[in-house]
């Protein structure tokens, strides 16, 4: 009888699936049966049966026997493992905690960045059909783009073009140039600076959520007023505000018709109180006269809703035509007034033009911030990986023992990954708690309100989970996959783990590079910010105060004279328009040589001694003075930029005629240049100083501008308040320091600087921890070697030298790379400023120095430690 062997494919399959011993036995059985069946039933049947038997072998209990053989119960050790993990943790408490903390910090920054960036990106996205909603903007020759346009444009567009579905206009209600509106509720008086006025369509287009009151009718009457939830609580507490009355400026009684959810934290628009546009029209709020029908003005924010997103081109065309047609007379270099549109989705992060509602965010800052947070996260993850790797080397013996008693490799891998995962989870949870606990402080730091709602909670959690997984993956990689592969005997005998120094060195490099870049960036940003804030603005603003003008019933003059009595008041005047911190204002003039075309100039209006009050440098002529200058011929003060733009020298300018354009008239008011002052920054330092006209005006215009000495400031202010109350009983004394205003403009930048500092400190800390951990790791390997050196008589210095060898090379290379990258990054960031510092070498030297110092100290302490250790202890195990 032929002895047929099993078919090849069965043979190979079984060989690969089963362990060698097991395969042999099972194949043997199959073979024997096969032979028997062939003998009894013939080949065909035998083949079928063989197939059947083969299939029966393919079952889990059989296939998985291999691992099973090793340790019957692979979970038996888990309990022990946990104990070991815990003991290790306690044995190196500091190190372990540092590890956890470092990772938690990294996670926390990542969470912060994630929430902040997603918040910022989501501004105005809640608006239904945001992709069809656009803001109309005007571009003036000479002065550039403004977010506001003329009053009649919006409705006209809706009337004339069917592809424009709707529009609304938005306006902030100011008491004077820039300050809040005095309101009274019953007897109580307040100043509210977030009152706006809008067409009723605003409610629909922006989909405001009404908590009380009816959305359809809330703004139907000119005396209606809608409050946000916050305002309602602030002014009415728990009571229902509907139907209650609020009086504006002591004159206009409004009735509360609704309460809505705030939108300020997720929109470029914001308000606490909302009045209808009809209100402004009816009471002819300040400056309203005439502008209602003026087509060439920048007065209100206008938003349109298109029928379809694709109609954008039509809109652009329409606006272009309109811009050409509108008579502005302000033509410069052949360029006329232009109209354009911008999607509301782009405004918050990409728009920074004149007369924005509030300072917008900036894409640049998001990028910078994201970058910083990413670096911190990376550093902390690298640290974690390093430290985990280092600590796992201690456990080689443990691994060896486990293998000997039968632990499968898969088991070891699972164990280490589980452990790493636990660490990561704990860190993540700590980070989450820290984030929630410190949310308030973070809000302050980031100049925003971080918010998480139902929709993005899951994204958020998902994000954190992904982080944890990634960290676990990389952190546990070395111990799990690499260490578990070692042959037990070699390990138990103490053969050193060679480890791939390449990876370790790369890790150190990355760490050094990242920390260096961060320090360099902070230093440079710090410098730039200080530069801006400290730069001489061309005027002394630190003791300048602006007092909101009293209502029409009391004249500025009265208050002015009253305040002038105080010795601390060095100088006082009235003014408005393009002053620092205030919205820029413009007007038209006919300077000598331009009889026909009116020229537009930034304008400020001021009373006597304005140059003195603002501490401006008089280049020619005399300061405003009511004795010299009267109303028949307007007195004009120009700044250097203005004079130069007209091609005059300061001396030439004096006496030249400078007519003031009269609203919608052919005549002009005669005017004469009486003074020229040096340029000063009446706008933000982001832009170069533009020509400015200061127009002498009666003291009844604008706010009171006071130059006040800072000694006894509090007392003086209290006195002034008392005097004020005497003169103007109904209206609260409201003042601001000009510094305030300016600071507000930069607030965003300043806060960014603060948060950068904070995060750099964090990064430094994390780097220090990381370097510390890494060095201990490197040193562990060297301990025995160095002890031998010590026995042979090495001094502390020599020990130090040996240790430093490795590090120095990496340090040098790392610092170079970091310098190159850092320089590039900073140059890109600084481009944003029109006044910027030169980068120079100093930041690089300082950063490098700091890092070297840090490493040096660590090396020193470790060398010292080794030097003192009794070599017997380290060499005992040999």
């Amino acid at each position, binding site marked *: 009888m032929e*002895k047929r*062997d*099993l078919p090849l494919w069965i043979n190979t399959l079984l060989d690969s699936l089963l362990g060698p*011993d097991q395969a*042999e*036995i*099972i*194949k*043997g*059985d*199959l*073979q*024997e*049966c096969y*032979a*028997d069946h062939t003998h009894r039933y013939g080949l065909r049947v035998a083949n079928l049966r063989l197939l*059947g*038997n*083969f*299939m*029966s*072998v*393919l*079952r889990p*209990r*059989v296939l998985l*026997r291999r691992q*099973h053989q090793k340790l*019957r119960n692979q979970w038996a050790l888990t309990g022990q493992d946990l104990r070991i993990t815990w003991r290790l943790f306690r044995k190196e408490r500091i190190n372990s905690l540092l590890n956890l903390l470092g990772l938690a910090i990294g996670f926390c920054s990542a969470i912060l960045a994630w929430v902040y960036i997603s918040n910022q990106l989501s501004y105005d996205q809640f608006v239904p059909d945001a992709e069809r909603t656009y803001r109309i903007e005007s571009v003036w020759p000479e002065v550039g783009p403004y977010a506001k346009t003329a009053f009649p444009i919006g409705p006209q567009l809706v009337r004339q073009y069917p592809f424009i579905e709707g529009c609304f206009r938005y306006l902030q209600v100011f008491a004077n140039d820039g300050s809040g509106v005095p309101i009274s509720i019953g007897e109580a008086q307040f100043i509210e600076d977030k009152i706006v006025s809008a067409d009723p369509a605003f409610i629909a287009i922006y989909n405001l959520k009404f908590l009380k009151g009816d959305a359809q009718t809330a703004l139907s009457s000119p005396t209606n007023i809608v409050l946000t939830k916050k305002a309602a609580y602030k002014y009415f507490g728990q009571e229902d505000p509907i139907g209650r009355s609020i009086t504006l400026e002591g004159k206009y009684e409004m009735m509360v018709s609704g309460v809505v959810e705030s939108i300020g934290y997720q929109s470029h628009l914001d308000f606490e109180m909302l009045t209808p546009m009809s209100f402004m029209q009816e009471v002819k709020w300040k400056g309203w006269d005439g502008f209602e029908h003026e087509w060439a003005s920048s007065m209100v924010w206008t938003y349109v809703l298109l029928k379809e997103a694709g109609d954008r081109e039509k809109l652009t065309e329409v606006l272009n035509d309109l811009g050409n047609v509108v008579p502005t007379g302000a033509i410069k270099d052949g360029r006329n007034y232009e109209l354009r549109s911008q999607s509301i989705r782009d405004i918050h992060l990409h728009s920074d033009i004149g007369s924005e509602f509030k300072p917008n965010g900036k894409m640049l800052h998001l990028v910078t911030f994201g970058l910083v947070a990413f670096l911190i996260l990376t550093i902390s993850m690298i640290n974690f990986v390093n430290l985990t790797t280092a600590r796992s080397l201690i456990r080689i013996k443990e691994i060896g023992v486990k293998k000997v008693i039968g632990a499968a490799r898969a088991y070891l891998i699972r164990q280490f990954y589980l452990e790493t995962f636990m660490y990561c989870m704990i860190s993540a949870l700590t980070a989450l708690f820290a984030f929630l606990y410190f949310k308030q402080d973070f809000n302050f730091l980031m100049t925003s309100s971080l918010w998480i709602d139902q929709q993005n909670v899951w994204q958020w959690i998902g994000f954190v989970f992904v982080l944890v997984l990634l960290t676990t993956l990389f952190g546990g990689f070395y111990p799990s996959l690499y260490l578990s592969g070692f042959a037990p005997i070699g390990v138990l005998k103490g053969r050193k783990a060679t480890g791939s120094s390449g990876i370790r060195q790369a890790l150190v490099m990355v760490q050094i590079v990242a920390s260096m870049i961060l320090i360099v960036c902070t230093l440079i940003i710090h410098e730039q910010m200080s530069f801006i804030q400290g730069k001489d603005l061309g005027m002394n603003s630190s003791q300048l105060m602006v007092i909101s003008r009293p209502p029409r019933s009391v004249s500025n003059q009265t208050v002015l004279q009253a305040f002038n009595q105080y010795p601390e008041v060095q100088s006082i005047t009235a003014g408005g328009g393009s002053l620092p911190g205030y919205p820029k204002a413009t007007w038209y003039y006919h300077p000598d040589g331009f009889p026909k075309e009116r020229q537009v100039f930034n304008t400020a209006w001021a009373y006597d001694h304005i140059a003195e009050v603002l501490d401006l440098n008089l280049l020619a002529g005399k300061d405003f003075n009511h004795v010299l200058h009267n109303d028949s011929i307007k007195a004009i003060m120009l700044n250097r930029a203005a004079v130069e733009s007209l091609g005059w020298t300061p001396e030439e300018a004096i006496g030249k005629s400078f007519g003031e354009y009269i609203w919608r008239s052919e005549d002009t008011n005669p005017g004469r240049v009486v003074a020229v002052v040096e340029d000063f920054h009446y706008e933000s330092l982001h832009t170069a100083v533009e020509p400015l006209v200061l127009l002498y005006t009666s003291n009844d215009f604008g706010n009171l501008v006071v130059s006040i000495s800072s000694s006894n400031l509090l007392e003086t202010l209290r006195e002034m308040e008392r005097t004020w109350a005497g003169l103007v009983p109904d209206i609260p004394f409201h003042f601001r320091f000009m510094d305030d205003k300016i600071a507000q403009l930069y607030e965003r930048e300043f806060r960014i600087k603060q948060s950068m500092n904070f995060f750099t400190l964090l990064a430094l800390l994390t780097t220090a921890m990381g370097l510390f951990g890494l060095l201990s790791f490197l040193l562990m390997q060297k301990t025995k070697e160095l002890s031998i050196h010590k026995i042979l008589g090495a001094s502390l210095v020599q020990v130090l030298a040996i240790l430093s060898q490795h590090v120095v090379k990496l340090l040098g290379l790392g610092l170079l790379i970091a310098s190159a990258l850092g320089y590039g990054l900073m140059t890109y960031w600084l481009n944003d400023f029109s006044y910027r510092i030169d980068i120079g070498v100093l930041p690089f030297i300082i950063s490098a120095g700091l890092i070297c110092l840090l490493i040096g100290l660590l090396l020193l302490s470790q060398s010292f430690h080794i030097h003192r250790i009794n070599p017997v202890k380290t060499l005992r195990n040999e």
Partner: protein
Amino acid sequence: MKRTNLGEFEELVLLIIGAMDGKAYGVPIKNKIKEQTGREASVGALHSALYRLEDKGMIEAEVGGATAERGGRRKKFYRITNVGKQALVTTYTLREGLLKQIPDLNFN
């Protein structure tokens, strides 16, 4: 006494191993099952049961005896342990006790 939960098939295999007293390995066990009960046990099912019994400590194994029919491959001989014997006794006692409680049951 530790609970010994023997599956029906496992118990069968155990019994047969006990009966074959040291000469039991894969194929003979399979044949004996066919002979005694008429059931065809597949190689896979059988080995599966053998592994389980081994893990439970009721049988122990010894490798040896390569023959030509097996293509020169060795066999794994199984022998019942005391634990296994005890398990069988316990089972038997339990069954016997319960059977006696059933009325009108004839043992022929």
